[in-house]
């Protein structure tokens, strides 16, 4: 997106006129934007003073637009971000720009997923990113605007507006899709520690996820029975992960997490149980759904209709995040499959040397 903004509007209806101007050019997500005045953009760049405005963070497909700090800041202003959110937006863009994320095809696919931003570390509390009740819903500026900023970057710099994004239906997470892990309620190591980061490091994990699907289990407290409920919800015909696996997401409710921990289960125990039990027979899978691949497990015997097909290739491929409020529900978020994988990136902080990427 070139900074084509030829006039200064100072009349009483400036907000409306700027919004009309942006909307007519396809530079919004349909909602009103905060006009990115020079002062606001400069203030936004103040959220990462160790980065130069002309530094290139990513080249965003399919338009191969140059996402410099300046252009990211413009979109973050438009989304309503505070300057202190900017490092999270930048880290999220760095994550989706890694090859294993497959952003070029995620921007243009018919599949309905959106980039889900999962935030871990002390940055969650500092920015007040909701990890508790209603974390996928409205009411929290950080969740609402960080996810929206990434979306605006993908549309305005990457060119994935409505005529280019071929998503057959899309889903509401394409407006914003940002949550945090409720680490204080997590009986195990949080997601970023599982992936090799220090506990006090701010980290984003990006995964191209469908809309959350509620898995209610208000009755059973035995882990085996909860897994049975989860497995039946997850391994349903039509879910892409059954045909080409990948990194689907389990947002584990805090009460469910407590039941597993009380029974002595580790996170890996849970991941392994779902790897083993969230399956369908090859005979049902082979001639339906989507094409099989590109990471379809070798251990599925395609000559045996009773050979069981999992939704992940290995236990750790299930992204487990403990989050949410009180209640007997957890959420399952399928992904497109093995052609798009989750990526974790550190959130830069002042005075910190830039850490190398860690991926799964």
């Amino acid at each position, binding site marked *: 997106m070139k900074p084509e903004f030829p006039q200064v509007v100072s009349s009483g209806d400036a907000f409306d006129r700027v919004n009309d101007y942006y909307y007519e050019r396809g530079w919004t997500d349909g909602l009103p934007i905060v006009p990115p005045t020079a002062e606001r953009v400069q203030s936004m760049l103040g959220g990462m003073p160790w980065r130069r405005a002309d530094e290139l963070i990513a080249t965003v497909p399919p338009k191969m*637009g140059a996402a410099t700090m300046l252009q990211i800041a413009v979109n973050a202003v438009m989304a309503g971000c505070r300057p202190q959110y900017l490092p999270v937006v930048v880290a999220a863009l760095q994550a989706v720009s890694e090859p294993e994320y497959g952003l070029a095809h995620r921007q243009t696919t018919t599949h309905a997923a959106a980039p889900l931003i999962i935030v871990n570390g002390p940055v969650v509390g500092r920015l007040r990113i909701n990890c508790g009740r209603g974390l996928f819903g409205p009411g929290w500026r950080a969740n609402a605007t960080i996810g929206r900023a990434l979306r605006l970057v993908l549309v305005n710099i990457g060119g994935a507006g*409505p005529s280019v994004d071929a998503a057959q239906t899309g889903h509401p997470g394409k407006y914003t899709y940002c949550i945090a892990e409720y680490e204080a309620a997590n009986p195990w190591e949080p997601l970023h520690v599982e992936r090799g980061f220090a506990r006090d490091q701010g980290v984003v994990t990006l995964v191209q996820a469908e809309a959350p699907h509620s898995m209610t289990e208000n009755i059973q407290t035995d882990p085996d029975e909860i897994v049975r409920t989860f497995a039946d919800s997850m391994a349903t015909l039509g879910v892409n992960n059954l045909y080409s696996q990948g990194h689907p997401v389990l947002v584990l409710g805090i009460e469910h997490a407590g039941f597993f921990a009380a029974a002595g289960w580790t996170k890996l125990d849970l991941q392994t149980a779902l790897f083993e039990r969230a399956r369908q027979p090859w005979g049902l899978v082979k001639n339906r759904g989507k094409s099989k691949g590109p990471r379809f497990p070798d251990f599925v015997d395609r000559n045996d209709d009773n050979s069981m097909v999992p939704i992940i290739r290995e236990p750790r491929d299930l992204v487990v995040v403990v989050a949410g409020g009180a209640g007997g529900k957890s959420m399952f978020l399928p992904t497109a499959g093995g052609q798009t994988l989750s990526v974790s990136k550190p959130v830069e902080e002042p005075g910190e040397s830039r850490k190398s990427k860690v991926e799964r």
Partner: protein
Amino acid sequence: MISTAFAPLAQIVSQGIGVPYLPILVVPHPVGDPSEAVVRKRGEDIAAECARVLTTPAETLVREFANKPFPLPHAVMPR
């Protein structure tokens, strides 16, 4: 060559790789589901246009295809 539903994508990709004037020829969408006979007919219908583009001087094609609008068909995105 691309089907109508993806023509705007082809155009923005061509811009992204630095050839915004790339000749883009459009066939009806879809091409994945119809019978082989239908697909063959679409190929025959577009063959002459392919030949024209391949034998037209580049500077003429630049004028024709730079910023050429490719509206999505109504069936894909009703307005």
